[in-house]
């Protein structure tokens, strides 16, 4: 057999690989090159080395957008994970009622970001929103969620949690299905309380699902864009401008493609670093008790 020299197998992979090289690998490299150049709408620009990066470091708008991104990610990921886990535990049962409630909690996840912001704009708006109406029935003054610097990120976080609950909940439900029944039977023989069973059996068995959910959600929320662009356009006074919105504005508002590319590379490195750290930290933490 000369299988190793047989190029015909490659023909099957070639259509994908050719597009992959053109539309993903080439842009990835080109992005690094662009970030080292001063490029605008016209012409090829010129090489500035790390000039764009140096400028970013001193750009308070970029700095604020990074801080906003981290803040909103922290406001979203922990509550989202805990609520999704709690829902999965409560809804991991047979019966029509549980099935309907599972369907309801998943339903928002199939909507696009434009529909979600359209819905939430008229919930959060103080003069015409559902929350405002509810507030008024209690005799309170409606809160200006989208125009107050301190309320805007929590409002975006709330919108995002409502939107994103479905998939983590399904992942936890699937994880719960993989726990062998006899582990619970053993716990029952030991007369372990529900609480002990949860901490000793359920949670350790869900470890890998938990890591998966936290990693996926963190990477997703660090790229939060549509909610901020559509609901507030980054305002008031930049209080909800995220890193991706910053690079979008730099690229397609001011056509500073090199500068925007440098911002994109920095965010890419941050996402990689955070994801790898989470993976590594959980690998070490769980390695000790014999887990994989």
């Amino acid at each position, binding site marked *: 057999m000369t299988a190793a020299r047989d190029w015909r197998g490659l023909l099957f*992979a070639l259509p994908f690989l050719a597009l992959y090289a053109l539309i993903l690998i080439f842009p990835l490299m080109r992005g690094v090159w662009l970030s080292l150049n001063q490029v605008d709408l016209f012409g090829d620009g010129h090489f500035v080395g790390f000039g764009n990066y140096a400028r970013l470091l001193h750009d308070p708008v970029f700095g604020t957008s990074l801080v906003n991104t981290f803040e909103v990610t922290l406001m979203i990921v922990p509550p989202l994970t805990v609520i999704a886990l709690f829902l999965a535990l409560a809804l991991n049962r047979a019966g029509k009622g549980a099935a309907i409630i599972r369907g309801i909690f998943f339903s928002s996840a199939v909507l696009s970001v434009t529909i979600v912001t*359209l*819905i939430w704009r008229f919930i959060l708006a103080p003069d015409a929103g559902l929350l405002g109406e509810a507030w008024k029935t209690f005799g309170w003054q409606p809160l200006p969620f989208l125009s107050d610097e301190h309320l805007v990120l929590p409002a975006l976080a709330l919108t995002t949690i409502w939107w994103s609950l479905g998939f983590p909940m399904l992942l936890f439900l*699937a994880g719960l299905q993989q726990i062998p029944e006899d582990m619970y039977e053993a716990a029952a023989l030991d007369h372990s309380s529900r609480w002990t069973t949860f901490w000793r059996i359920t949670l350790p068995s869900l470890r890998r699902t938990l890591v998966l959910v936290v990693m996926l959600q963190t990477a997703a929320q660090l790229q939060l864009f549509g909610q901020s662009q559509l609901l507030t356009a980054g305002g008031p006074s930049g209080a909800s401008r995220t890193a991706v919105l910053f690079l979008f504005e730099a690229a397609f508002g001011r056509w500073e493609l090199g500068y925007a590319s440098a911002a994109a590379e920095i965010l890419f490195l941050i996402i990689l670093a955070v994801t790898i750290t989470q993976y590594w930290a959980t690998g070490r933490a769980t390695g000790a008790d014999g887990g994989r």
Partner: protein
Amino acid sequence: MPTVAANIRRGRLTPLGWGGLIFGALIMVAPLLWTLLLSLKNNSELVGHSGAALHGPYTFENYVAIFGNSLTTRWLLNSAIVALGQTAGVLILASLAGYAFARLEFPFRRTLFVIVLLGLAVPSQAVILPQHELFAWLHLHNSYPGLILPGLVAPFGVFFMTTYMRGIPRELDEAAMLDGASRWTIFWKVIVPLTIPAQSTLAVFTFLGAWNDYWWPLISATRSDMYTLTVGLAAAQMNYAQTSGLGYLMAQAVFASIPIFIVYIVFQKQIVRAMAGAALQ
């Protein structure tokens, strides 16, 4: 795959537990119901007083207006073309490549597969600016190929199909090989029919992702007749103050969500099965 019914070990949920769940579910649906009610109201009734949505009279006039507006129906058509095109493309490319990586021997196979897997770690924002530049060079902005192509290079499909095909017993293709079948025949007659469950799961996820994508169509489609529903609705809500009323806007939101809810309800099983697969990895 074990169904949820297969293991019930949490004991009974207390009435308080059920109460909490139902309360949570009400909070989840309240925004959807609110949107639906707003969409059924006469626009002038809602001006400065959206609370009017809580009582009648209700009307379908906003929905009638959507069908009179050629742009919204055009956006629906665009979304359908882009989402179906991307789904078909991903299924074809990922099945072919998955077969090559799972079954065939060729030089640099492992290296190429690792390069594809590394692509899973590349967020779209890291490549979107050069992609925009590339598609401008190719004169593909404001075209269906331009809207469809970037979605075809997501490495997930290849990873998913390769993993699935590795799980198919080799005896099946070896038997066909002994019968003198070519690689293409084995792929088309033996492997593809066995991967139908994986194909349908991948199809549902690709369709959902393509239908809901906002980032790429936002920068690639700049002519309003080439907008997809996501971009069209974004433009509609940004111009809200100047244009038509709140009820009409919400009717557009409901109109745009109906197709995706239908897909969700029909393909629920595939979604749940895919999640079970992900939790196992």
